[in-house]
């Protein structure tokens, strides 16, 4: 029983990381109606920036204090993501206003490639470490209730906490602020939003910057856990089933979807895997998403997709 709970908790926390990535997808889709295939590349780009800045900035400014160094590196990486967002708006989005979804999707694929190439040429393609002081050691909890206690990874726990806080802040932002409202208007209809005076360009820069910062947080957490390497970019492909399950327009959906996928993957790998031959993780999430697509395409919390005649 203890083992099951352990696997469950491990899955929940892995799921939290997926949710972070999915969050970026949902933000951009909610606010600009575009599915951002480049989210994974943004995570990689941000993580690379963070990893290198954490080395370059203290060296350049001769800072001894690691906290200050890391903090400055984070700030610099966030600024960089803002610049990236601005460039994306200027060079790509502006020219594709009101094009159909498929075109925009393929444009974001192009952006993904550019970011990957740019990231690795600017920052190098070795495996870098990110050290933000996350606790690395596992800890035993609930030794009284379960025999031997449950082995929890402290790092995953902290990551899950950060993700939860981030989600809460973003949900508040969308619901309560006027900018949040404007973002939702833009997602509905670009031209209509423009015609009531919402500055489309500025909105897009804001949204992509926020998504960029979310990507940065996700990149730091993943990078701290796994090291910054190319497979981070395929993170986008891991995040897709999450948004299908949760609903492309729902922030809480990204979280719940992430948790379900995380748990599902872990459980299926442990319990189902040995029966049909391992390595199920790769496609389990996608088959789950496929089922949803056939029976409930809008996901658990998304808005119903209406086709206008």
């Amino acid at each position: 029983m203890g083992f099951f709970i352990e696997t469950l908790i491990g899955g929940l926390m892995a799921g939290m990381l997926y949710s972070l990535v999915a969050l970026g997808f949902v933000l951009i889709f909610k606010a600009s109606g575009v599915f951002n295939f480049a989210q994974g590349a943004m995570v990689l780009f941000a993580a690379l920036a963070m990893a290198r800045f954490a080395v370059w900035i203290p060296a350049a400014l001769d800072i001894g204090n690691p906290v200050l160094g890391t903090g400055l590196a984070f700030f610099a990486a966030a600024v960089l993501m803002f610049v990236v967002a601005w460039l994306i708006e200027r060079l790509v989005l502006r020219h594709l206003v009101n094009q159909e979804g498929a075109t925009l999707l393929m444009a974001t694929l192009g952006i993904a490639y550019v970011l990957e190439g740019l990231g690795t040429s600017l920052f190098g393609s070795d495996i870098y470490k990110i050290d933000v002081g996350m606790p690395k050691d596992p800890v035993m909890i609930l030794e009284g209730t379960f025999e031997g206690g449950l082995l929890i990874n402290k790092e995953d726990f902290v990551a899950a906490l950060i993700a939860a806080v981030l989600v809460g802040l973003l949900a508040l932002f969308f619901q309560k602020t006027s900018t949040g409202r404007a973002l939702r208007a833009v997602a509905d209809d670009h031209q209509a939003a423009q015609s009531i005076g919402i500055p489309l360009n500025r909105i897009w820069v804001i949204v992509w910057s926020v998504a960029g910062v979310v990507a940065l947080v996700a990149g730091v957490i993943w990078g701290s856990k796994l090291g910054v390497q190319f497979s981070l970019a395929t993170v986008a492909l891991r995040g897709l089933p999450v948004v299908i399950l949760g609903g492309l327009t729902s922030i809480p959906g990204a979280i719940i979807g992430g948790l379900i996928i995380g748990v599902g993957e872990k459980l299926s790998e442990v319990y189902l895997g040995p029966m049909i031959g391992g390595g199920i993780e790769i496609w389990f999430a996608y088959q789950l998403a496929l089922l949803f697509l056939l029976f409930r395409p809008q996901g658990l919390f998304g808005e119903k997709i209406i086709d206008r005649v």
Partner: protein
Amino acid sequence: MLYRENGQFKTSYAADQQIFPIAQDRWAMLGLLLFAFVGVPLLVDEYLFRAILIPFLILSLAALGVNILVGFCGQITLGAGAFMAVGAYAAYNFHIRIAGMPLLGSFLLGGLTAAVVGIFFGIPSLRVRGLYLAVATLAAQFFTDWVFLRVPWFTNNASSGSVSVSNLQIMHWQIVTPVDKYLFCLSFVTVFALLAKNMTRCAVGRQWMAIRDMDVAAEVIGIRPLFAKLSAFAVSSFFVGTAGALWGFIHLSSWEPAAFSVDRSFQLLFMVIIGGLGSIMGSFFGAAFIVILPIALNQFLPALGSVFGISISTAGVSHAELIIFGGLIIFFLIKEPHGLARLWSTGKEKLRLWPFPH
């Protein structure tokens, strides 16, 4: 002046509906085919066959398939690699498990298997479209990745996980040298391109395009979305599967599932976007572009760099390739969504008027 339709009057609908109604086009095509079948084998060296021409031909076939689905029928797919894999492994199994199975038979059966699987994974297209359909095709991609890796029957229980074929022959023609391989692929591609062109000109092609352009209206005028979409998936997968079999048997000779990964799917999609959605010729343009680009960059970039005094490593070239790739996709989507094929036909329009500007 040279490229004019003057004096070419069509006196029957049959003449009007030829593939190349303008005589100059017909001659040009004939010349091209003659050159391809006879001239190229005489002029080109082995490296070019292996590095450029054979991959170009096979990937053009795959791109044709993807174009039928994405460009003509408007159903987005990110799982084309999976169907190449199905075609390759099916052909492999037919080839080794059935004694005396002719090579062409294995290929066609491989393609048919891919078509059946394609119909199955095309079912979500009846419910969803766009991004959601893309996810469904990705589900197919990842599932087949796993199946061919983990289920030993498909690889004939090979311990290494990879399969290989050898000693390919059709009747008494041994397909061994690069020239043999080239001619074999060229024949396949020519026949399939003709089939594709015919289908897109006829009723089934119009059904596909109607579904792409406005599927509600299509149903109202009597086109069944189910038949149109699933037939698009079937035909597309048939083409892609056959290309997969060719890729494995002829180009690679020995392969593992990674040869047909999601990267391949993306590559095919890009070929179709850059080449031109909804255009047979565009599939060829796109394939040529994507095959030649890395090679060209590899030769060209370091030289360009040294002009500016920057040395560019091979890693640097592959990074630059990604940037240029992505940049080109964005460029085409913004400036010329109909790809190189549109540039080509615009060029021909201008040529018709030449030497007058308009």
